[in-house]
């Protein structure tokens, strides 16, 4: 098995392969010779320079390494080539199994517009609205009456909130239509406006699917990923606090129907928006293993990568839908090298200290170590910390405990942000939606912190300073020049 990826997901797949007795081939860029996925593999080959376009995105080089190493199959992980239908096709042509759906299914479900057509054909609910631009305010009123208020006017050519107006009743609509249209005209050179039902405070809930080559397809429950920042997931959990048996069955069946309609095989995820009345609306499909798959593994007791590999070997699914039972609650925090105090700016660099958490119910999918320099060429995710417990409340408290144990030194991380979210009353009561985190950040309140005696801090600092003469800090200074150290301090102070 060749793993065409890096970081924690490459390591996670390598581990599954070793458990199944499969020899593993790692690939690495020049920035990643020392990355942790390399020393875990049986074989390792250099791909190219650090930029992804010259290394992890070079499907041709990867297939060449596959040929040289006698590889039977390629696991793409997530990101990079994982949703590249041309690469999946090239693998098939080269006689190498691509661990994922066939290129044809990827083409249908991976593109947003085609996926919407497939969703309509499969009878999937979508956010109701006019598909084309509205001629005038009268037409807008007519369409809105059919959909039901509140509605959202949106610029056809736009994005970024320009030309958007929320409308809560027919009386406001003509004025809002004129305003949205003229704003769209000014911003995008086109006044074309369409209308969609306004989903107030939607939750992001997704269904994990696994399909085999024999027409079998099961859904493995849902994940809630409503805690997002700039459309990036920050915390994921399974199950969702608001999804009951009945809703899970309806969403799961709809997602499976969509996958089967396109001849989908292997792991995939169908994303939905869910409103307060438990209506769900199709968003998009991710035709790969997701970052947040561990929470599903913990609550179902299944190993998704093992399942992916068995499906790719042509085996039928070993589990039936009625045997899939969700147990307990799992929460995942995506730990990033970024600075929450400075607009979440990426903070790559040398990890000078790493003290990792452990104990009951803690899983960490991580590929960094003390002494590893986080490259600035890739996504700065360091680790996925996952807590599993019998209930949601216990999982939250377990995660807080693990975060207290965790120390990552040398670079800035978002660990403090997770403490704040997990202690927030709204999060703890599951009153979350896709706008929740931005609102919390706008509040800007400080985190309640345990008091530490100033004298104890001073003593600890003095003891460390007194002992540095023989230890690590001295060694660090010795290898880097004084200028490099001064430069880094200066960088940190900015």
């Amino acid at each position, binding site marked *: 098995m060749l793993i065409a990826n890096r970081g924690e997901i490459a390591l996670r797949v390598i581990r599954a392969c070793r458990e199944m007795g499969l020899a593993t081939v790692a690939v690495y860029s020049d920035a990643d010779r020392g990355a942790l996925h390399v020393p875990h593999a049986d074989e390792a080959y250099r791909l190219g320079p650090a930029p992804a376009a010259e290394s992890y995105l070079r499907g041709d080089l990867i297939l060449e390494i596959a040929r040289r190493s006698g590889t039977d199959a390629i696991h793409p992980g997530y990101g990079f080539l994982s949703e590249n239908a041309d690469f999946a096709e090239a693998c098939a042509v080269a006689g190498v199994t691509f661990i994922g759906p066939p290129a044809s299914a990827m083409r249908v479900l991976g593109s947003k517009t085609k996926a919407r057509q497939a969703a309509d054909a499969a009878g999937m609910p979508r956010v109701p609205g006019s598909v084309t631009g509205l001629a005038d305010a009268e037409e807008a009123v007519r369409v809105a009456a059919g959909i039901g208020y509140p509605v959202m006017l949106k610029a056809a050519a736009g994005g970024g909130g320009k030309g958007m107006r929320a409308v809560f009743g027919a009386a406001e609509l003509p004025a809002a239509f004129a305003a949205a249209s003229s704003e769209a005209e000014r911003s995008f050179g086109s006044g074309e406006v369409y209308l969609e039902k306004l989903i107030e405070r939607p939750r992001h809930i997704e269904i994990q699917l696994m399909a085999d080559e024999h027409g079998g397809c099961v859904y493995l429950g849902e994940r809630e990923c409503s805690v997002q920042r700039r459309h990036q997931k920050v915390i994921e959990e399974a199950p969702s606090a608001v999804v009951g048996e009945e809703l899970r069955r309806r969403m799961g069946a709809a997602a499976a129907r969509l996958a089967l309609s396109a001849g989908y095989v292997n792991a995939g995820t169908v994303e939905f928006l869910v409103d307060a009345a438990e209506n769900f609306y199709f968003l998009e499909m991710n035709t790969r293993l997701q970052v947040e798959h561990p929470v599903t593994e913990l609550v179902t007791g299944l190993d998704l990568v093992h399942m992916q590999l068995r499906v790719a070997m042509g085996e039928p699914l070993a589990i039936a839908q009625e045997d899939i039972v969700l147990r307990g609650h799992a929460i995942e925090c995506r730990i990033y090298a970024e600075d929450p105090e400075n607009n979440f700016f990426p903070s790559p660099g040398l990890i000078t200290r790493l003290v990792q958490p452990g104990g009951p119910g803690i899983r960490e999918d991580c590929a960094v170590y003390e002494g590893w320099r986080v490259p600035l060429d890739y996504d700065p995710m360091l680790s996925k910390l996952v807590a599993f417990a019998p209930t949601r409340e216990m999982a939250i408290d377990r995660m807080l405990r693990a975060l207290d144990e965790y120390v990552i030194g040398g670079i800035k991380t978002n660990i403090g942000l997770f403490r704040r979210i997990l202690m927030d009353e709204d999060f703890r009561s599951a009153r979350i939606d896709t706008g929740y985190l931005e609102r919390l950040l706008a509040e800007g309140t400080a985190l309640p912190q345990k008091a530490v005696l100033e004298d104890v801090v*001073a*003593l600890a600092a003095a003891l460390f300073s007194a002992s540095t003469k023989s230890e690590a800090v001295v060694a660090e200074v010795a290898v880097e020049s004084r200028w490099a150290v001064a430069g880094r301090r200066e960088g940190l102070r900015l």
Partner: protein
Amino acid sequence: MTVWLDVGGKKVRVSLPGSREGVVAAEVDGRALTADVRMLRPGVMSLVVEGRQYRCVLDGDGVVIDGRRFGFEVEDPRSLQGRRGAGAGTDGPRAVKAPMPGRVVRILVKAGDEVGQGQGLVVIEAMKMQNELKSPKAGRVAKVAVAVDDTVGSGDVLVVVE
């Protein structure tokens, strides 16, 4: 030995006995403080003070206790001169450099402006994130070395404050 420290802007003097493992009778600004000290591995230490346990982790120029990081600086009189010589003090001109490669999106000051410590100088964008670079000290802008839309490399000088 005696260690002079600056902990979060506050000067303290810590006197340590010769042996620094086990029960250590120290003094912090003249106040007696007895702690049971155990270095677990380089940079990770357990302190027990009156029955309360503190796990302390050294992180560069800071110590992490209970998830909080406390920055500190050693004010060893012997090395003071050397550091001044390296230009790390608050005297003299200071260059504000790009922390990573990016593009200049906004310049908030011009040469000759009086700026306060922490005032925003330049906004650069990298990895689709905007980052406002702030003045390291109060002073006057001696030079703005970049223009809007310039591409800058890591360590490039953006602004000099004197």
